[in-house]
């Protein structure tokens, strides 16, 4: 009876995951979808705790160590909820990456414990030989879990600025060598080709190499591409979870893991398409690392730029009929969304029409700007998607770019040698004036020069987005 209930809960769990994912992909049902999946997950977890039975010798017994399990569940829930509730909107992608890493680490630990368990059994009973299948899922689960864990931690560090982009000379080569090493060791352990006494060293050798691979694989990828990488690592963790499902013959782990594995891969590809790039381009091309050659080549395009004072900017905007604000990561970093909304209101009082031009990949994650501006209560209809924004660009007098860079870089349109060539951009040059607010002349996260700053229509307004906007609002109010 208990077995029936358990399998039934797993079945319901699997169905809620499918429904949840389906609902998450439509705006109206997204939030409900998340709840549906969460309910299914809770059911599957508690069913496991109370109904799961395993074979110990000749009899079936239930799980024990309840105190420990519940203690861990409570600690994890409290810390997880607090972290998720407290995190600022801007830091969400890095938190997702961190949680993903936790899942990977969890899969890794499961494999390590099961491996030790297996060794133990073999010591007790020398006739016992682990099957290839068993070793296969244990080793693969650990390998992928470790890559995902190490990679996610690096992605997290890069997004919050603790780790800088680094390209290691010959990094591609080293990566391939490490991957080769992992495969060789994996075959030795799984196929039982290694000596019994060596096998444990080899097993942990795989873990070490997999961790190195995870680190080196994410290290050179530019911050702008991080969401794509996180999504990819996400589907890795899904696969690791699925190997756990194989290990225990557990259907809900299997469906949940594989669903995320395949859906995550598709999502990764969709994200790349939104940036008009291919996945290989993101992974192998890895722009964002310092590329001396490319930077040198583009330095030629540099000329002189002109600066504009705060009061001049205020005047231009106050006498415009239509202003388009283009937010980017700089706005998010400066937490300037509220003061930005303030600026919009002050301008509207003066009879200036204000809209926002939102590039789909502005910021550090798709939809980042929508979330950020929604937080500041900017009305939904003021946020124009890229196509609409470009259509209205011709009738716009002033474009105010707040901490955006790559999404307005004309090189994406007319420089085939540029790494971002082909990415759709906001064509700000169709407007009469372009005011760019940046902290300095440094290139954006993609690490490439932006010729826009040197074009005649463009004026630079240096400073932190929040401070500049505060002064602009003050200036406009006193006019």
């Amino acid at each position, binding site marked *: 009876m208990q077995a029936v209930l358990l399998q039934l809960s797993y079945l319901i769990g699997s169905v809620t995951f499918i429904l949840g994912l389906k609902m998450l992909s439509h705006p109206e049902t997204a939030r409900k979808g998340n709840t549906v999946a969460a309910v299914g997950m809770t059911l599957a977890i508690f069913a496991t705790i109370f109904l799961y039975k395993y074979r110990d010798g000749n009899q079936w017994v239930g799980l024990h160590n309840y105190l*420990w399990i519940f203690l861990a569940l409570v*600690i994890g829930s409290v810390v997880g909820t607090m972290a998720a*509730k407290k*995190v600022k909107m801007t830091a969400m992608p890095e938190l997702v990456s961190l949680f993903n890493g936790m899942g990977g680490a969890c899969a890794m630990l499961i494999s390590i414990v099961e491996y030790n368990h297996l060794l133990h059994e073999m010591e007790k009973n020398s006739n016992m030989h682990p099957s290839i299948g068993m070793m296969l899922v244990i080793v693969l689960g650990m390998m992928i879990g470790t890559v995902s864990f190490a990679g996610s931690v690096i992605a997290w560090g890069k997004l919050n600025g603790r780790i800088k982009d680094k390209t290691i000379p010959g990094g591609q080569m080293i990566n391939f060598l490490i991957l080769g090493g992992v495969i060789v060791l994996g075959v030795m352990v799984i196929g039982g080709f290694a000596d019994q006494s060596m096998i444990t060293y080899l097993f942990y050798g795989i873990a070490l190499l997999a961790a190195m691979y995870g680190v080196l694989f994410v290290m050179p990828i530019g911050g702008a591409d991080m969401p794509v990488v996180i999504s990819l690592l996400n589907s890795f963790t899904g696969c690791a979870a699925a190997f756990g499902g194989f290990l225990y013959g557990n259907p809900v782990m299997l469906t949940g893991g594989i669903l995320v594995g395949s859906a995550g891969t598709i999502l990764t590809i969709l994200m790349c398409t939104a940036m008009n790039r291919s996945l290989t381009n993101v992974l192998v091309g890895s722009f964002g690392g310092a590329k001396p050659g490319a930077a040198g080549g583009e330095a030629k395009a540099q000329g002189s730029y002109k600066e504009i004072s705060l009061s001049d900017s205020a005047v231009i905007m106050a006498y415009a009929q239509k202003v388009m604000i283009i937010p980017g990561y700089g706005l998010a970093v400066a937490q300037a969304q509220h003061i930005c909304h303030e600026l919009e209101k002050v301008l509207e009082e003066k009879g200036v029409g204000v809209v926002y031009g939102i590039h789909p990949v502005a910021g550090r994650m798709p939809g980042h700007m929508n979330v950020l501006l929604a937080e500041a209560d900017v009305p939904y209809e003021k946020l124009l998607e890229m196509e609409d924004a470009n259509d209205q660009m011709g009738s716009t007098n002033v474009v105010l770019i707040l901490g955006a860079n790559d999404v307005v870089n004309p090189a994406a349109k007319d420089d085939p040698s540029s790494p971002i060539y082909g990415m759709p951009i906001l064509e700000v040059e169709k407007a009469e004036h372009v005011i760019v607010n940046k902290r300095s002349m440094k290139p954006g996260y993609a690490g490439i020069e932006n010729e826009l700053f040197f074009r005649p229509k463009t004026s630079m307004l240096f400073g932190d987005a929040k401070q500049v906007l505060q002064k602009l609002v003050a200036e406009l109010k006193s006019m």
Partner: protein
Amino acid sequence: MEALKQIAIIFLQNYHLITVVILSIFLGIEVISRVPSVLHTPLMSGANAIHGVVIIGAIIVMGKAPVDDYLSLILGFLAVILGTLNVVGGFVVTDRMLEMFGKKKKK
């Protein structure tokens, strides 16, 4: 030959699981074929929470560990904590993201 035979046995023992895997791959692809780009991040985050299902493995490890096997207990304990973080944190953070979207929709 021996290895091939072993593989055949593994396949026959697990063919129902393998079927589930293959069908799930297609299902995953079908389910998210067209997603507006605004929803990419919440969807990623939601999927992230779902693979937290790996926690079930951690609970099994923990629940099977003999009371005197400290290594397994400690690793299992850690695994359950990490898995819970993944699940609970993942769902809560997704909900927060979508909450922002919901607010925007009403206006």
